[in-house]
């Protein structure tokens, strides 16, 4: 079996390592080739995750061009499986490559396994998250899947291993886009690295409510998180979104206020060490993902927590 992994450079660069480790776990005998961007982690780190060899692509700013070059590289290789990170760029590139190669793509997989026939079983939430769908791509190759950064763990410890490494200098194609300016983000990265995450959902009900949560997060030295419905309601910016279409976090402590617990959200916080859920509905699904549950009004609980913190400070 031949597995290819696209490994991007940039803030989501660990995604390439995670996917490589997943590929090695899917099939320990597979030939795993990593297609890495110039500034992605070093080839030896991919070796440590189980890669067989590594091809390095020069840095290219135009992702339309990069997508077409990837498709051109993949066409003669005909890998069985191609794994891509489900970042904004990864989603775009995977869609572009799938269309150029005329093959199937499943976005945002939360689990990947092999069937008895050796097909890639792609598992993702479906129909509003109350159901989980298993998806196969039987006849087209490669079988393509994208996965959010942080869904699959890295080997621990990750011991570098030298592997064969080739630099590619693909030619041809013309750029369709030209980058004029760039302003780096901060929010999402801080959120991913935070030891404590204070997150709110639809139950928070307003922008003002999120300001209260943000000040709690600040007091605790943590970061503010949110569900998609809260972001869609305009109460908090997208940089704070946790879950299938936001960031995946693994903090020491996750405080969930007014979050119902849809699977699209919980896939982004299930790896937290300790989860505390506050919800007035004692049957809210979030309690199935929590170590401690507080059944009650979020605002009262928040006040109790602030009181608790200020008393113990004295």
């Amino acid at each position, binding site marked *: 079996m031949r597995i290819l992994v696209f490994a991007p450079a940039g803030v989501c660069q660990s995604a390439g390592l995670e996917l490589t480790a997943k590929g090695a776990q899917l099939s320990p005998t597979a030939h795993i080739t990593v297609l890495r961007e110039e500034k992605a982690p070093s080839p030896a780190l991919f070796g440590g995750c189980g890669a067989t060899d590594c091809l390095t692509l020069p840095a290219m700013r135009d992702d339309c061009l990069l997508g077409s070059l990837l498709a051109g590289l993949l066409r003669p290789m005909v890998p069985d499986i191609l794994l891509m990170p489900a970042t904004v760029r990864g989603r775009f590139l995977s869609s572009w490559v799938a269309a150029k190669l005329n093959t199937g793509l499943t*976005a945002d997989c939360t689990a990947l396994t092999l069937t008895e026939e050796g097909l890639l079983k792609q598992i993702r939430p479906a129909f509003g*998250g109350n159901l989980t769908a298993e998806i196969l791509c039987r006849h087209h190759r490669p079988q393509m899947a994208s996965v959010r950064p942080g869904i699959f763990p890295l080997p621990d410890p990750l011991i570098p291993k030298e592997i064969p490494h080739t630099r590619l200098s693909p030619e041809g194609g013309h750029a369709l886009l030209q*980058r004029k300016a760039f302003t780096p983000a901060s929010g999402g990265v801080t959120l991913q690295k935070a030891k404590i995450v204070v997150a709110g959902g639809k139950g928070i009900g307003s922008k003002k409510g999120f300001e209260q949560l943000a000040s709690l997060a600040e007091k605790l030295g943590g970061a503010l998180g949110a569900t998609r419905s809260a972001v869609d309601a305009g109460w908090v910016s997208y940089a704070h979104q946790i879950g299938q279409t936001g960031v995946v976090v693994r903090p020491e402590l996750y405080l969930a206020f007014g979050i119902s617990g849809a699977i699209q959200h919980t896939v982004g916080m299930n790896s937290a060490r300790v989860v505390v859920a506050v919800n007035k509905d004692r049957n809210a699904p979030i309690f199935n993902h929590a*170590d401690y549950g507080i059944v009650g009004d979020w605002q009262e609980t928040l006040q109790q927590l602030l009181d608790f913190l200020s008393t113990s400070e004295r």
Partner: protein
Amino acid sequence: MNPADESALELALSLRDTHGGTVTALSMGPERVSHMLRETLSRGVDEAVQLTDSAFAGSDTLATAKALQAAIEALGGFDLILCGRRATDGETGQVGPMLGALLDASTLPNATALTATPEGWEVTQLTEEGSQVWQITLPALITLCEWSYPLRLPTLMGLRRAKTAEIRCLSAADLPKGEWGLQYSPTRVVKVTAKPQGVRPVQKLPAAEVFSRLREGGLL
């Protein structure tokens, strides 16, 4: 209409208002799609087209993109295609970029703004890395983020037009032979299960008790 599509529609209308041209709203889907297309008419699109046929049923993202490509070509091409960056149900965000690849258009996902400058069209894009500004050449396909352009309200005249105007329907017979529908979809949902319950054994306790335990664990 989902919020990302609303952004795309508003941007299309305001570009037309400033630079001229026409706006066509195109949607693929069954009967309920026509209500949404009437909403676009009430906001002032020049034409609304519904791509509907049982032959399209069961299309995955690639098959959907192929049907849209054929429809756009049948409608006489384009200078600029604006889409929402993702649907609120599947949330794959794939159809736009796949369509861009099939049409070989300059394609940029996750845009929050598009402006005309003396040098050409500039698009602001939001990614995990930050915010970037790109200069693009037409023909292009841009997918818009939610809330980038708040959709205008319908006018009285628009509402009247939405009631009476005809929605142009395209069926598979109006398009050249193509690979769409379940039969030509590379991906197939083979099993659907209820989501797993109870990944953690929860202890429901009074707030004060929870905070003390967190404190004992060194977490607060």
